[in-house]
């Protein structure tokens, strides 16, 4: 009954959050991202964008409110359909592993993903400390495109690339996303970039309705 036809979107309903007993970071945030839609989000540093991203991808649970994925609440044991790509690839990859293991861990990645993101065959046999941050980030991006991914939250994922590479990565990213009809929340401080890649732009500070309430 919960599932209502046509609700193919990632919905945040009345989400509030604070880190243990400190003041509310945000209250009653509402946001919906449609399938295949790319939403760009910017906002002041420290305003809680990464926190919201972690809530959306089920790394943190909200103090209030609920998240519906295509009309359903998800349990968290299985592959989570909302995948987060983190800001710092060095921390997001097991330092002891070969990069090929990262690919294996993600399971079922399409060959096309690697060529589009410019991942070279010889990188697969190396370990994380033998690759640059940008090269590692390509793996982190690729990893998010598992067959069961329906939404992706991209938190500052191209800040380590030069302008040209950044353009290439986003080009590949958008192609992959549109092919698979994946909805995206792209977070960045770089508004011109967001304007280029997004279907819609959001100012996070406006999204937070009562940021200064303390109780």
């Amino acid at each position, binding site marked *: 009954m919960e599932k209502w036809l046509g609700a193919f979107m990632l919905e945040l309903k009345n989400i509030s959050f604070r880190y243990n007993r400190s003041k509310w970071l945000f209250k009653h945030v509402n946001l919906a991202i449609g399938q295949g839609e790319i939403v760009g989000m910017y906002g002041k540093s420290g305003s809680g964008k990464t926190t919201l991203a972690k809530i959306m991808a089920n790394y943190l649970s909200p103090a209030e409110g609920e998240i519906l994925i295509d009309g359903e609440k998800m349990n968290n044991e299985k*592959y*989570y359909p909302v995948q*987060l790509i983190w800001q710092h690839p060095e921390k997001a990859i097991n330092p002891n592993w070969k990069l090929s293991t990262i690919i294996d861990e993600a399971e079922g990645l399409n060959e096309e993903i690697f060529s589009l993101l410019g991942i070279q065959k010889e990188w697969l046999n190396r370990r994380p400390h033998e690759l640059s941050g940008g090269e590692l980030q390509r793996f982190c991006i690729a990893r998010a495109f598992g067959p069961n991914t329906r939404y992706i939250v991209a938190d500052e994922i191209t800040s380590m690339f030069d302008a040209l590479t950044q353009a290439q990565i986003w080009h590949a990213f958008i192609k992959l996303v549109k092919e698979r009809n994946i909805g995206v929340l792209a977070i960045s401080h770089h508004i011109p970039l967001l304007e280029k890649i997004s279907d819609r732009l959001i100012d996070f500070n406006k999204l937070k309705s009562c940021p200064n309430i303390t109780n």
Partner: protein
Amino acid sequence: MKYHSISFGTRMAISRKGLLLKLLGLLSLFLIFVIGGSFIGEEQIEANMSQKNLGPSIRHLFGTDWLGRDMFFRTLSGLHLSFRVGLFSAAISTLIALILSLLSSYNKYFDAMVTILIDLLLSIPHLVTLILIAFVLGGGVKGVVVGIALTHWPSLTRVLRAELMQMKTAEYVQISKKLGKSRIWMVRNHFLPQILPQLLVGFILLFPHAILHESAITFLGFGLSPEQPAIGIILAESMKYLTAGMWWLVLFPGLSLILMVAMFEAMGNNFRKMFNPQ
């Protein structure tokens, strides 16, 4: 920048090679102990009344005792037995530490239980617990092995627990979970490889402890039975003859024991250095 990283790399490689050589040396030394010990048959340590109470000589390197038994071979087989006891008890202890630390990382309740258990065991002098357990189990190899195994896991568990706790919050582990990986998969692929060095070092450092304790409680009479040629037994028996001036009965077995213990200490420390070279 580049030059620096290269020179640093080669220096590391050389010191690692040196460590590896040392380790190999130590390894072969103790292999001699083990293999030597297992080849000793009854005939070599048989009583021989015509050769009683001889001091060290070429024929009998460590001398002979009051029954004319060759002390060199007795010491070797004693070390061999100690080695086996040490191996078993250190292995079981390490296994306990591994299981408890994994449990501890599983959830808060297990962690609280494990922490209490650790604190409890660490608050009692472990020689006391050890003797108690060995006594209850009626001594013998079983009593000693179980006693040592049950009393020596706490400090290693602590180290492993801290490492696992830190790892659990690592981003790549959390991501793994969201990729739908099961707990067992994460333990096998993320956790175990990471704590393997600590596990190995912990195991090797437990070894000398186990051997010393085995000898100590055997010496005190709570350990192995007198028929077994353990170093502790040899030392306990020989003490009676020390006043008769037969110093070699105590000196050589004691020194050999210390040597073996020191070897394992050195090996453990070398391993540790190899895994985190600073």
